């Protein structure tokens, strides 16, 4: 059965079901016994559900060590920026152990954190810093945009034998959507076409998927049929689906909440400029956040973020672009 439920509840449901299914799955973090999370400790006990001190390096290192030793820890790291105090453990330890040990060691752990809290959280808490984790060998990264994907990607993350960074979007926490009951797995490395279309390919992740869909709706009124693709995982990144779409539309706009040079957008642009070049009829346009820290004040915060207007303008730009080469 499919019910409507909030994004955050869908994530928790996945963790809960996996914990019920496999007693090696653990849940640790600073907030795991907080309000709304009581079910975990109640049903799985204080051994498998543990509150950690404010010590991210220890939390993540402990998770890696427990994973080497056979457990499958999920670490709730709260916010993406908090990973930065433990960055070495995220990008230079557990993700390399399988390789460095010649295949002896496995490190199945999930690091869950929120990002993109552009709601007045100011300079140090609002980043869309997933770009930092792309291109890191051995690390997988999921960025769900809907409750169903959030549930399915979390379940897949927990079953994966590699470290997975699961980044949920803070501005989507209470957004509701249909979510399948029971086991629901969304495969990694498979982009989802959130809206089919034939004129322009629009790729977006997380919160910007919804901005892109809204823009697509408006553009439809102008007679422009936009296809909206959500990669869902950015490592692995499903370039094939994007290339297939561009082969059809010839036009690509990339939307990203990150700053331009730390974005998924730039990575996709690079792939398509190499592997989809012959399909392109217009420049690949990126609609990203501007290159600033996020200011506290709403006027300034909104100014630097991608939004519907900017997406619509970019699509008009690529549709209006003259085709071909000098």
């Amino acid at each position, binding site marked *: 059965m499919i019910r409507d439920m909030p994004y955050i509840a869908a994530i928790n449901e996945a963790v809960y079901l996996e914990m019920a299914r496999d007693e090696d799955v653990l849940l640790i973090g600073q907030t795991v016994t907080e*309000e709304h999370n009581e079910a975990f400790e109640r049903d799985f006990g204080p051994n498998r559900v543990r509150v950690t001190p404010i010590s991210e390096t220890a939390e993540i290192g402990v998770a890696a060590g427990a994973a080497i030793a056979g457990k499958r820890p999920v670490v709730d790291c709260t916010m993406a920026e908090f990973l930065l105090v433990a960055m070495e453990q995220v990008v230079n330890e557990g993700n390399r152990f399988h390789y460095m040990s010649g295949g002896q060691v496995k490190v199945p752990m999930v690091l869950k954190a929120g990002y993109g809290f552009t709601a007045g959280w*100011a*300079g140090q*808490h609002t980043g869309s810093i997933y770009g930092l984790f792309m291109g890191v060998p051995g690390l997988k990264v999921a960025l769900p945009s809907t409750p169903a994907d959030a549930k399915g990607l979390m379940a897949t993350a927990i079953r994966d034998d590699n470290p997975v960074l699961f980044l949920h979007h803070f501005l989507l926490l209470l957004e509701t959507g249909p979510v399948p009951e029971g086991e629901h797995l969304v495969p990694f490395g498979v982009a989802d076409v959130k809206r089919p279309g034939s004129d322009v390919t629009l790729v977006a992740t997380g919160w910007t998927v919804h901005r892109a869909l809204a823009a697509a709706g408006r553009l439809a009124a102008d007679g422009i049929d936009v296809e909206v693709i959500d990669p869902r995982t950015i490592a692995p990144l499903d370039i094939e689906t994007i290339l297939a779409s561009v082969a059809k539309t010839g036009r690509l706009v990339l939307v990203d909440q990150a700053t331009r040079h730390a974005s998924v957008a730039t990575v996709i642009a690079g792939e398509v400029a190499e592997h989809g070049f012959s399909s392109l009829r217009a420049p690949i346009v990126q609609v990203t956040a501007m290159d600033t*820290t996020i200011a506290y004040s709403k006027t*300034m*915060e909104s100014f630097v973020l991608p939004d519907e207007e900017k997406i619509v303008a970019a699509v008009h730009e690529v549709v209006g672009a003259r085709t071909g080469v000098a």
Partner: protein
Amino acid sequence: MTATDQVSESVLDISRQVEMYRHMVRIREFEERVKRTFAEHPGVIRGHTHLADGAEASIVGSLAAIRPGDQVIATYRCHGYPIALGTDTSAMMAEIFGRATGLCKGYGGSMHLVDLARGFLGTSGIVGQSIPQGTGAAYAAQLRGRGEVVLTFFGDGASKQGAFHESLNLAALWKLPVVYVMENNSFSVEVRTEEEDANAAAGEPLATKARAYSIPGVTIDGSDPLVVHEAVAIAVARARSGAGPTLIESKVYRLSAHGNSIAPPGVPLHFPEHEAIARYGDVAEYEAAKRGDPVPKFRAHLVEQGLLSVAEGDSILDNARAEMQRAVDFALSSPLPEASAALSYVYA
């Protein structure tokens, strides 16, 4: 500095004690207005806001022990320090309301107050991360060679971050003029200290950690500004003399929740109940803390000692309330920043 100087510096004359009380009241009234804003002007304050109510004695007692040229660094729970250092409360409120007239022109917000001119170097919103920065400011002070010190404030929870450990070791080694004031309010958000700190779990004070760096560590009653002042003054004198850092565990009880609610779009922000009640149902603990509220306690002490009349006390409160009303009015009537100002100050 001689031992006599230290003692004389730690005995405060009447006017300084009253002044300390006045700052405590100003901090409290400021925080009350911030809290009320969530109800009275919903949407005006954004993001996450952390109040200093309950810590006034600790803040004011500490800052009474330093002199111009000294510097202060803190965390996201940062409203109290600049008030006591003389920062304009209207500019502070405007900052918290995100206005162009704010202390940081609306860029920083509640968690990131800075008043460089008054020696308030700023904050980090990431737990523990301003501790090395305060240590570095103390390195600069040591190099200046004018005997200036840096007070570095942080919470009990921050002592669980590696940054705490690395900084105290380095400061001890370099004999830096820094005083580490840990405000132990028994909670990290809603986690009780004994749930996350091994010293606390073993019934030992957190100041024990000083042993790991072979520096003095003291635990004090942070609800009494005179006690705080005395302990910090001794540590400051030690730092000025070149003998190095001290760790002070100042025991306080925050009287509000950790911060306002963490609300995604559509959910109104508000200031929830204290975690002792909301999470642990421990009304008795919270009521006891209320009875120990440092602000009325210090007032009672001053009155009892004949250092403050009831009328003077009332007038201090009235003035503080009027000041904070002006701050709110100023902030509300100030413009929001131009949107395009977002592109300024990215690089110096």
